[in-house]
Every structure is written in structure tokens, then in C-alpha cells.
């Protein structure tokens, strides 16, 4: 797979304050990469370094092989960007805003695509005719998403894209991302606080903590790393010892109910329960949130 985003020991300091430090990362073509971190951890700084808006203190960032600082034009030739806060020209109508951003984009906007995006994100003719200063935060966000997608870029950089969107629009956004990945192989670099959305959309997740990349894992690996909580219910009290299986830890025990944490495959546990009066087996799935909380607590 071709590497679309490449950063190498990328650092940015604001005087004594660390923006990002020694960040090395590769995002491959067609990947949806989730970039997570607390407020002020360096997500937006990383994105702005990728877009050539900030000059790295050291290291480098590249998009499709082009250095983001020294070859910014080449690096940004096929990028769609949604900033964390949608910047607007308050006096412009939504239609004029999109027309203007289309005119300064890398390629002409297809009217059919624009129409489709506006329909999907429920932007009506009336909305298009209103001045941006009169629009709600959610509508501005939708227009921000539309402007990022309308030039059909091969790399999308989205900074907290669903902030301020209602559940219907979040669903529309998720469907759009899934389609872009599936149908056009678009690479998406997505920073978000909404972990369920990241879990649903992303192939891999990078966690940034105090400016440094704390971890990069696939969603599958995260699920494997985290123990699953297994609750075993028995029809009659069980007095015997709990099975001693590698990767299985007893959390609590009552005569009719065991709670266990299981790392790795479930098969050995299930086999060991075969001789017992099993009534129910409930296997919970740890979420990305647990993973992040775990990393942050370390």
C-alpha cells in the first residue's frame, strides 16, 4: 500500500510549550485513520503541520511524498480539509461560500456531486440563500463537510467533523465516509472525540498524549488487547475452584455467578466450563473508551 501521510520525528514547539514532539506516523492509501487525544494534546497542531500552516521545529511531514512545508502546493493538491471550527465569511450566503471555495479548489466542482452532498446533509435551497451569519452551528458544520468533500479529494483531513451535528447527520456523515472508502479508496485522517464513531469508521487509531504519539493500533488489535468481561451464570451453586487458564482472571465470584476478564481466545474457557451446570454466558466487549482511559491512566 502506498503511504499517503508520512511524518518523521515531527516536532513543533511554541516557545517552551510542546505542540507535538517526535511524531512518526504513516497512513496508507485507502485507510481511515482515527487520531485521538485529549484537548490540547496536539491533534490540531499535527493537522496544521500537515497542511503547511505551521512550520515544523524539527522533523518532517509529507503528503504523497511531498514535504508539507517546502512543497506545500504539491502536498495540498488533492486534499479536502474540514477545520475544527468552520470558518465563515459572515456576510456571504451559503451558496456563494461554496461557489467561492469551489473556485479556489484543486478542480472544478461537479454540480451533480454537490447536489448529492447537499441533499445528503439536508441543506435546502432556502439554506443556501441565507447569509452564513444567520446559520446555526450545525448548519455551518454541514457546509464545512460539504466544502471538504465537494472537490472529490483523495485525502480528507477532518478535524472533529461531527461536533455539533444531530444524530441523523452523524449517521449521514458516517455513511459518506464508508462510501468514500469503499467506492473511491479515499484516505481519511480523522480527529475525533466521539469514540463510537471512530470505532465504527476507522481501520487504525493513533492516540496522542501531551504531544507525543502514545500508541497506534488497529481497531481489531485494540479489541484483542483489551480483556473481555465474561459473566458466567450457573443453574446450581458451584463450589469448585475456578479454572486456571492463561489469560483468564477472576474479577468476582459468587456461588451461582463468576465474573472473569479474558484476554485472547474464549475457547479454553468455554471448554473448561463444559462439566459445570452452566445457565448463561455473557461476553462483554470493551470499548475504545476503555482503551483510551487505560492508556491515559498509565
Amino acid at each position, binding site marked *: 500500500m502506498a503511504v499517503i501521510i508520512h511524518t518523521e520525528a515531527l516536532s513543533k514547539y511554541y516557545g517552551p510549550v510542546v505542540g507535538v514532539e517526535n511524531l512518526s506516523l504513516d497512513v496508507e492509501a485507502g485507510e481511515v485513520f482515527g487520531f485521538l487525544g485529549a484537548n490540547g494534546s496536539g491533534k490540531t497542531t499535527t493537522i*496544521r503541520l500537515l*497542511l*503547511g*500552516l*505551521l*512550520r515544523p521545529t524539527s522533523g518532517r511531514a509529507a503528503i504523497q511524498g511531498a514535504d508539507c512545508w517546502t512543497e*506545500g*502546493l504539491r502536498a*495540498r*493538491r488533492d*486534499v479536502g*480539509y474540514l*477545520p475544527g*471550527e468552520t*470558518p*465563515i*465569511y459572515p*456576510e456571504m450566503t451559503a451558496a456563494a461560500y461554496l461557489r*467561492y*471555495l469551489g*473556485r*479556489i*479548489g*484543486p478542480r472544478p466542482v461537479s454540480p451533480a456531486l454537490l447536489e448529492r452532498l447537499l441533499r445528503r446533509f439536508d441543506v435546502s435551497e432556502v439554506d443556501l440563500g441565507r447569509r452564513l451569519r444567520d446559520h446555526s452551528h450545525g448548519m455551518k458544520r454541514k457546509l464545512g463537510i460539504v*466544502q471538504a468533500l465537494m472537490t472529490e479529494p483523495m485525502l480528507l*483531513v477532518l478535524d472533529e467533523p461531527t461536533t455539533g451535528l444531530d444524530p441523523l447527520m452523524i449517521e449521514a456523515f458516517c455513511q459518506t465516509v464508508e462510501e468514500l472508502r469503499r467506492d473511491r479508496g479515499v484516505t481519511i485522517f480523522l480527529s475525533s472525540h466521539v469514540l463510537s464513531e471512530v470505532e465504527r469508521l476507522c481501520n487504525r487509531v493513533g492516540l496522542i498524549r501531551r504531544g507525543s504519539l502514545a500508541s497506534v493500533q488497529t481497531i481489531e488489535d485494540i479489541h484483542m488487547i483489551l480483556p473481555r468481561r465474561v459473566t458466567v451464570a450457573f443453574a446450581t451453586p458451584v463450589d469448585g475452584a475456578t479454572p486456571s487458564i492463561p489469560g483468564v482472571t477472576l474479577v468476582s465470584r459468587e456461588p451461582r455467578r463468576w465474573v472473569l476478564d479474558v484476554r485472547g481466545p474464549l475457547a479454553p474457557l468455554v471448554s473448561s466450563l463444559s462439566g459445570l451446570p452452566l445457565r448463561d454466558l455473557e461476553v462483554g466487549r470493551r470499548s475504545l473508551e476503555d482503551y483510551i482511559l487505560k492508556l491515559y491512566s498509565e
Partner: protein
Amino acid sequence: MFSALVMRSLARTRNLFIVLAALVALFQVLIVVVASSFETSRSFDALIALAPAVVQRSLGSSLGVLATFTGMVMMAYLHPIVVLTVVQFAAFVATEPVGEVETWLVDLVLARPIARHWIVTRTLVVTFALTVALAVAMLLATWGGLTLLAPAGARWPAVSTVVSLAVHLVLVAWCFGALGLLAATFARRRGTAFAFVAVTAVCLYLLIAIADAWTPAAPFRWISPFHYFRGFAIIGGTAPTARNLFVLAVPTVALSALAYWRFARQDL
């Protein structure tokens, strides 16, 4: 793409431009009305006699030039309100880049394949064009006023002299526009950049006024761009026009070049 950037910038400044163009044009017409009144009543001599001694001393023989129909009409191009309005307008327009940084609009624009120097070039084009447009509005108003309101037999100012005054005014404004652009590459707020240039312009204007009245300040006149806009010398035909325009162009070019250099390297 570049034309879209220019059109957007022009659209954002349109209302302010229309208001200021109307005001400076109205001022020109009013001056013609006043000059016509003096001419009709033949009271220019009385005007000289009414001038306080300090004004007579500082203006010297220029007062005689001013106290004519022609001189008074051309005075509209030297009046502090007009000069500082045009200069401050140029400075305000030129600080647009930092305004875009402040409102994050620059992220939206520069995330596209647009070179940073386009932003600076656009700002210079818009600043220069709108300043020229203000001067053209003034010229049209002067000639409109003269055509409609000048008394019969009054001597109109020479076109070349009025155009020369307007060109000097535009060059001074460009100079402060370039300073505004450079200030915009240092500041994080448009208000800061504009305030800096606005205060600097007023101080440099006052420097000339002080130097006229107070000899120890005279050696510092050359610092001020207004020193190279010698209105009475232009009206009297004694100003070294080419030299003055060149001197005004030099800092404009130098400050613009510095702004290009800074904007290409700064964190946005």
C-alpha cells in the same frame, strides 16, 4: 483562482470603500462650493488677513497660493482629514491577511493548493487598486464640482497638478499600506496591526506639522512619508515630483518585499 481571491477581498471591503469614496468625493464638492463662494464674493484677501500670525508664518508664501480659487480647490487633496482617511483606509485593507489568520479563514484557503505569496499579492493588488479608486473618486468629484458649481470666469486648477497631488496621495497611502501588510505578518490580531499603522501615520503626519513650526524637529522630517507629499510645492510647480515619488516607492517596495518574506515563513 487568483481572481477569485481578489474578488472575495474586494467584496469584503466594498461597503467601507463605498462609504469612504462617497465621503471624500463629497468633501471635494464641498471645497469647490466654499472656493466658489470666496471667488464670487472676492474675499480671498480677507481670508489671508483673518489667518492667525502663526499660520501666516508657517505657510509663508504658500498662503497666497492657498487663498485663490485654484489653490483652495486643490487644498482638498492636502487636507489632513482626506490624507489620513486615504492612508488609514489603505492600512486597513492591507491588514486583511492577519484578519484571515485571526478568524481561521486562512486555514480554509491555504488548505487548498494556493501559494502563500498569493495572499500577499492579492492584498497588495486590492490595497493598491482601492486606493487608486479612492483617488479617482476624488478627481471625478473635483471635476464634477467644478463643472457644476464653479463661478464663470474662475480659473480651474491644471489637470496635471491635481493628478500629481492625487498620485502623491496614492503613493503615500501605498507606503502605509505596505507597512500595514508587514505589520499584519507580525501581529496575531488585525486590530493590533491596524492600530499600530494608524498611530504611526498620525505621528508621522504630526512630525511634519511640528517640524514646520519647531526648528529642532526639522532634521527628522525626512523620516515621514508625508514629507515627500509637499502639497504647496506641487501646486506651485516647484516640487521634485519624480524624486519624491521614487522616494515614496522605495519603502513601499521594501516593506512589501519584507511582508512576502515574513508571510512565507510565519506560523499561521
